[in-house]
Structures are given as structure tokens and as C-alpha cells.
């Protein structure tokens, strides 16, 4: 892991789309990439070049009492002679009275604002009678040139590259914005009390990810190129080769800065140390101070979470969707029908800190923190993560294997329309929709996967696929709220938007040659029905198959005819129970585990597939483990707030897992101590 944590943040791909020299350019080397010297008086030539290249320059300027990134029209806009003093919860400008323009550290804004804007239009959904359509928004990526980007910010861009471009799913908008932006970095020759890039291995010296990098001296700048584009710029600049003295002073300045920071956050083993601290009393202590205002996440140059919001006309016929910054500190963020999975601020802070320094590593192979210190300076109550991390750092603990997702092309805005063929009522509030004209990807979908289902003006919903037909799929939906009700209200020939199939599936292959135990409750039978179809389709390849199904009352059982049909086959043991019934029900009454309390089958030969309310699954898992089923042979589905369905919006994070991308089907071994824990 350690090697992994220290992995250099080679951007992916390089800002200008071409490969970056794998080995960072050491200050003392002299090759095609410099170093050159650019006189201070000629800095405006660089800006002119960029403007001639039809680029908007995003660089440092003074506004509202801070040095922020904004459009730079000329060198006059730069913070000449202005520096900053930062400490937990405080930021002040200081006048150095000299000519330097980069003699400050980092302000509240970072390039994230332009590579991952706070608000991005996604699509326009329209309904015309029965027909619906979703028109993805076309986004222009402006031609930008970032000026004054620091090493930690380059690292942050590298991390967001991994998040948005490095995974099985990619964010095209981000890709375009990155591609169209030139990056002119600046090596830090000063550091704030809140900086700790040295600990995170990201600075103070830029190590790749830039087109051009400057180191500021009194008389001007030592310049290096990191890409052909950068070298091409230099070719048009009035530069000469930097002399030894200039190179030395540049290297010396950077070295001094590194020394002032020290190593406030020892990262060796940090990942494991943190994961072992889910239950630390310290979380509650922090929560006494934490305002859960999300400022830390918003100033963080890597935090990438978002939500989708709709705005519709008075009749809901036309609605526009936008992706907006949203973060794990807000209540709505982890909400599902039933409430928030992280109702307590302590849970939210734990989610954030453990994600930054532990689960992020499992997801993306690097820390989520680059040591820029923004979250410390801009925390209204001055919580210092460096101090908190030291407080919460006991010995190592074992770490379970992370899950690996399967790639499917899909972006949050893109819904394919499908047409409802038939609707079948299952219970008073559950309907099964058979949907045709679906994207072929669905027909080859796997048992247990789900689809994001959308109708205009309502937030898209994750709905598990309850049957794969020849050219249709079934969606079994319970009216749990207005959005589901609106879908259930649809009829034959009505259209809906579909995205997917998404998520992991029941590992039916692993069950071959084993006994199969299926334990489910309520609507939890829906995602299991394809599995049962699959088992019965090739019955001879499995040993005993047992289905235990609990419902609230006899009338709340799904697929009643099919249950009867399965039972009649005789080659699958179908046991049903209900929580309450009247005299006319002669079957068992009690919780689903009651059905096998005293059964005689041997758990060690079985694989179990469990789906139902979380508390029911917990009780079931206990009963199954008591019967000798190993954690890697018990599979459960988790319900979480899924917004994008592909692990890009962050809502459904559970520990190191994205439920939508890595799940919803997990083995108990995968979940480890996450399963059944409050507030994850």
C-alpha cells in the first residue's frame, strides 16, 4: 500500500492530451525543456501569447480580501507585492511592497472551479403526450490557460483525472475541459502555516502535469517546459538560458519552503490506521466543533461529489437537469426513503476524513488529499485535519479487498427512451412494468443489476431489473413516494428514460455444484427473480435450491402465481412466511429466519443470496453464519441513495465502496465490518 500511496500523481491523460515525460524534470537538469530565464519585464509577453492563442487566462488576482483565481487581462491584474498569511480559520492579505507576483500560497479557489464547475447543465427532459425525450445538454469547453497553478493543485488535477477519467466510466465534460486548458505552474517559494504538501508528497515543487512551470526570482522567472505545447510557447518568448546562479537560487528557494513545512501528517500506514478507527470516540469530539457546513469539501481541490437537480415548468412537461456541487456534509446527500444514512455530523466528518485518507486509496490508488491546507484555513471554526489525524492514529488493522467494477458506457445525463409494453399489479402498491424497445445492453444484462429510470420533472430512480425477457425487461416498483408513484401511474405505450444496466450481479457461476439458499423479504424478491429464473433454466447444474420468502401479509407477496409454480416443480423448496395473517392463512407466520430455525440442511455446502430491508438481512446473516456459511459465500444487496449510478456523484459511498458501481450486490467478506454499522 505504501508504494501505492506515494505513487506520483502522473496526470491521466496529460493536460494537453499528449503523454507527459514519465520521470519528472529535476531542477538541475538542462535539456530541451529548459531551464530558461524570463525577465520580469517580459511576463506580459507570455500573457499576450496566451491571448493571441485565443485563450482566457485564469490566474491570481486580489478580490474581497483574498487572492483568488479569476480572469487575468494584463499583468496589472496580478497580486504584485501581495502575499497571504493563513492559519486555521483565518486568512489575511499582507503587503510585501516588492515586485513579486506569485509570492503567496493558495487561495480559496482552485482550478477545480473550471475543470469541475459548481453547476453544469445535464439535459432537458420533455413529455409530449405519452412520449418523453431527454436531450443531453451540449457543453462548450472554453479555451483556458491556468496561470500560477501550484504543485499541490497539479496533484489535485491528477487525482481528479483518475476520478473522472481513470475509472470504468468517464466524465466527458471534464475530459473536454481538461483537454482545452493549458497549465502554467509556479513552484512555491513560500508556504503558509496550513501547508503540508511535503507530507502528501505533492510539492512544493511541480513534478509533471504542467505545460510550463515558473520559479519566481526577484529579477524574473526560471522557466521549464513539461510538454511540447509548453516548449512551443517558450520558443516564442524572449528567454535566454538560465544561468547557474539563477538555477541555484530557484532550487534553494524551493528547498527552504519544503524545510519549513516538515512532515505534519505521517502517511505510512495511515490508510489502515484510519479504517480501524470507525468507532473512535474522537469522531463525537470533532462533531462538537464541526459545523458540517461543507466548506472544507468545497475548497478542497479534489472533492468531486455532486447532485442532480430538476427545475420544471408548471405542468412538469419540460424539465431541465443540472449537476451541482454537493457534499457528504449535507443531510440530503445520503438520504434514501427512510432517512439519511449519515444523520449525525460525526458520521459525516468520519465519512469525509476516512474517504480522503483511506477509502480514496482503495478507490483510486492515491490519497484524496494533496496537502494544500485549504480545508484548514477556510474552516470557519478552524478544525485542523493534521491535528485530528494525529489524534486518531492507532496501530494497523487488516483491510479487506476492494471490489472491481465492470465497465459500461454511461453518463449521468444520457437516458435512452424505452416503451412500456404492459403493466401488472403485484400488490396494492407494487407494479411490474414490462418494458420494450430497450437499449440492447439491457437484454444482455446480468442478474441483480439495476437501471436508472427517469421521467421528466422527477429525480431519476435506481430500479432493479426483475426479469430479462427475450426483448423486454421487467421493472418491479413499489410506490414509495411521488417519483415512484409517477412511474407506476404510467401505462402501456407510455415512454420512460432508461440508463444502464448498472451495478454488480449475483455470482450465479459460483453456485454451480453447490446448494443455493435464497432468503428475501418484501420487494426484495424482485432483484432475485432473474437469479431464480437462471437457476431453474439450468437446474441440473445446481444441488438443492431453497427459497425462503417473508412478506408483511399474504397479500403483500410478489409474483404469487410464479411462487406457486416454483413450489409445484418439486425441485426447489419454496417456504413462505408472513409477519401477520388471519385465520385463512395456514402457512407459517413469523420472520423469515423462522423458516429455517430448525431446518436440517448443512450451511457449509451452501451459497446464500439475501435481499431485503437491512435489518432483515442482518438477522438473516446471523442465522446463516450460525449455520456455518462463510462470509465469502453470503451475498447481500445494499440500498443507498444512488444519484448518478456510476460512482461519480459520491452519494452512495459506503466506506470505500460506491454501492451503485461496486454493488449493489456484495459478498459479506467484501463489506467486512461496514455491514450493519450505523452511520457509514
Amino acid at each position: 500500500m505504501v508504494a501505492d500511496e506515494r505513487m506520483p500523481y502522473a496526470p491521466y491523460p496529460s493536460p494537453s492530451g499528449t503523454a507527459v515525460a514519465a520521470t519528472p524534470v529535476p531542477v538541475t537538469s538542462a535539456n530541451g525543456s529548459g531551464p530558461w530565464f524570463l525577465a520580469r519585464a517580459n511576463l506580459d509577453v507570455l500573457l499576450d501569447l496566451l491571448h493571441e492563442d485565443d485563450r482566457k487566462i485564469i490566474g491570481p488576482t486580489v478580490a474581497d480580501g483574498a487572492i483568488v483565481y479569476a480572469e487575468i487581462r494584463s499583468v496589472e491584474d496580478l497580486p504584485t507585492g501581495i502575499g497571504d498569511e493563513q492559519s486555521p480559520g483565518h486568512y489575511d492579505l499582507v503587503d510585501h511592497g516588492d515586485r513579486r507576483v506569485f509570492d503567496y500560497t493558495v487561495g480559496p479557489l482552485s482550478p477545480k472551479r473550471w475543470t469541475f464547475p459548481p453547476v453544469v447543465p445535464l439535459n432537458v427532459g420533455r413529455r409530449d403526450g405519452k412520449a418523453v425525450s431527454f436531450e443531453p445538454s451540449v457543453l462548450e469547453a472554453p479555451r483556458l490557460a491556468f496561470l500560477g497553478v501550484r504543485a499541490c493543485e497539479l496533484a489535485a488535477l491528477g487525482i481528479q483525472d483518475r476520478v473522472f477519467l481513470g475509472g470504468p466510466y468517464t466524465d466527458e465534460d471534464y475530459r473536454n475541459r481538461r483537454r482545452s486548458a493549458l497549465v502554467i505552474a509556479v513552484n512555491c517559494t513560500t508556504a503558509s502555516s496550513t501547508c503540508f504538501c511535503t507530507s502528501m508528497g505533492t510539492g512544493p515543487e511541480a513534478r509533471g502535469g504542467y505545460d510550463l512551470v515558473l520559479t519566481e526570482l526577484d529579477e524574473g522567472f526560471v522557466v521549464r517546459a513539461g510538454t511540447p505545447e509548453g516548449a512551443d510557447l517558450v520558443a516564442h518568448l524572449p528567454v535566454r538560458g538560465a544561468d547557474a546562479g539563477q538555477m541555484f537560487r530557484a532550487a534553494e528557494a524551493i528547498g527552504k519552503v519544503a524545510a519549513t513545512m516538515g512532515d505534519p501528517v505521517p502517511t505510512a500506514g495511515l490508510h489502515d490506521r484510519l479504517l480501524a478507527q470507525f468507532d473512535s470516540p474522537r469522531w463525537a469530539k470533532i462533531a462538537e466543533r464541526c459545523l458540517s457546513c461543507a466548506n472544507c469539501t468545497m475548497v478542497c481541490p479534489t472533492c468531486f461529489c455532486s447532485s442532480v437537480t430538476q427545475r420544471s415548468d408548471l405542468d412538469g412537461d419540460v424539465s431541465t437537469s443540472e449537476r451541482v456541487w454537493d457534499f457528504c456534509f449535507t443531510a440530503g446527500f445520503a438520504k434514501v426513503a427512510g432517512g439519511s444514512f449519515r444523520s449525525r455530523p460525526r458520521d459525516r466528518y468520519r465519512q469525509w476524513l476516512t474517504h480522503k485518507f483511506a477509502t480514496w486509496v482503495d478507490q483510486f490508488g492515491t490519497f484524496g488529499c494533496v496537502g494544500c491546507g485549504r480545508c484548514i484555513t477556510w474552516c470557519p471554526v478552524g478544525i485542523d485535519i493534521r491535528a485530528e489525524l494525529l489524534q486518531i492514529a492507532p496501530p494497523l488493522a487488516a483491510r479487506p479487498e476492494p471490489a472491481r467494477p465492470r465497465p459500461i458506457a454511461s453518463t449521468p445525463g444520457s437516458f435512452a427512451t424505452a416503451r412500456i409494453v404492459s403493466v401488472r399489479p403485484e400488490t396494492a402498491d407494487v407494479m411490474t412494468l414490462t418494458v420494450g424497445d430497450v437499449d440492447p445492453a439491457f437484454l444482455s444484462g446480468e442478474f441483480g443489476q439495476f437501471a436508472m429510470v427517469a421521467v421528466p420533472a422527477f429525480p431519476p430512480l435506481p430500479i432493479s431489473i426483475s426479469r430479462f425477457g427475450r426483448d423486454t425487461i421487467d421493472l418491479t416498483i413499489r410506490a414509495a413516494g411521488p417519483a415512484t408513484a409517477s412511474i407506476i401511474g404510467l401505462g402501456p405505450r407510455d415512454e420512460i428514460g432508461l440508463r444502464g444496466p448498472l451495478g454488480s450481479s449475483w455470482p450465479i457461476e459460483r453456485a454451480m455444484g453447490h446448494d443455493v439458499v435464497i432468503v428475501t423479504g418484501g420487494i426484495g424478491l424482485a432483484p432475485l427473480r432473474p437469479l431464480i429464473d437462471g437457476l431453474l433454466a439450468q437446474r441440473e447444474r445446481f444441488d438443492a435450491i431453497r427459497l425462503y420468502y417473508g412478506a408483511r401479509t399474504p397479500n403483500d407477496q410478489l409474483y404469487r402465481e410464479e411462487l406457486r409454480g416454483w413450489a409445484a416443480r418439486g425441485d426447489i423448496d419454496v417456504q413462505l412466511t408472513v409477519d401477520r395473517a388471519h385465520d385463512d392463512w395456514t402457512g407459517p407466520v413469523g420472520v423469515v429466519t423462522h423458516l429455517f430455525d430448525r431446518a436440517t440442511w448443512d450451511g457449509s455446502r451452501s451459497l446464500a443470496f439475501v435481499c431485503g430491508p437491512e435489518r432483515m438481512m442482518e438477522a438473516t446473516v446471523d442465522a446463516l453464519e450460525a449455520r456455518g456459511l462463510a462470509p465469502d459465500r453470503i451475498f447481500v444487496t445494499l440500498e443507498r441513495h444512488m444519484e448518478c449510478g456510476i460512482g461519480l456523484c459520491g452519494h452512495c459511498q459506503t466506506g470505500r465502496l460506491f454501492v451503485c458501481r461496486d454493488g449493489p450486490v456484495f459478498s459479506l467478506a467484501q463489506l467486512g465490518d461496514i455491514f450493519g454499522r450505523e452511520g457509514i
Partner: protein
Amino acid sequence: MSVSSLSLPPADPVSALSASWFGAGLSPEAVARLAGIAEVRDVEPGTELVSEGQITEAFSIVLAGRVALRTLVPERGMVTILTVEAGDILGWSAIVPPHRGTSTGIAIEPVQLLELPGERLRVLLRSDHALAASVYPRVLQAVSRRLSATRLQLLDLFAREEWSRREGQPW
């Protein structure tokens, strides 16, 4: 709909007892003493075996069939709150004061029971502490299992999430 079949169990009390979940693991002496006062009984569907509020005459182990534990809810009639199947015990109130049934147990299938008369069983347990010490934990185990199951039922996990009530927003 259930395919659990009614296989005829051995008719003699000793083997019936030791074959059951309740009897398994009991010392031979214990089995012998309990079996001594036990008798196998077959009842028709509809037979009321335990009555809510009434003195429970016998402590039984269900050998086959299903017994519904019901309770009367005004305006809802008899509601089944739990069923007892083969292996489980019935009428534990016979050995727990005040010896009154906590619900009404009605056979909803042909049921075979191993019945131990409450009065004689209580005398036996009072006189033989070793026996009591091995019987009561099993009774408690069965009762606690029902308790935790009942708690889960109480949570009404499959009930439709009434978001409107939860969020105070009726739309």
C-alpha cells in the same frame, strides 16, 4: 404452498424426545425422566391446544404439523402472530408462573405432540434441580428466539415507507 411434508415420527416418547431440537443433548437420565411423564398425542386441525389467559395444562414438543399462535384483536378478530412447527415447543407457560397461556394455540394441520402434563412436570423440576438446570435454558432459548423474532415483526420492515408522514409533506 409449503412442501414441508408430514413425515410420521417414531411413536415412543424417548426416541421422539431425543430426536427433537428440545431433547437433543439432554443427558439420557434427563430424557428418561421427562419421557417418563410424556405421551405422544395426535390432534386434528382446529384443536385448541393452549388458550390465552387460561391455565396451560401441558408443556409440549411439536413432533409434526403446524400450530398457529393467535390472539384476539377487537375489530380485527383472531390474528396469527406466530406459527410453531415441528421441533419447537408449545405451552412453555405451563412451567412459568402464573402458568397462563400468552396466546391461543390452534392446530392448523394434523399435529403430533409429545405432551408433558404441566403439574407433574413442575413437581419433577422442583425435585430434580439438575434436570431443571438443563430444561429451563432450552425453554429460555426458545422464548428468546420468539422475542427477537417478534421484535423484527414489530419493526414492520416490509411496510411501505410512509414518507409523507415521515417528512410531514403530504404530497
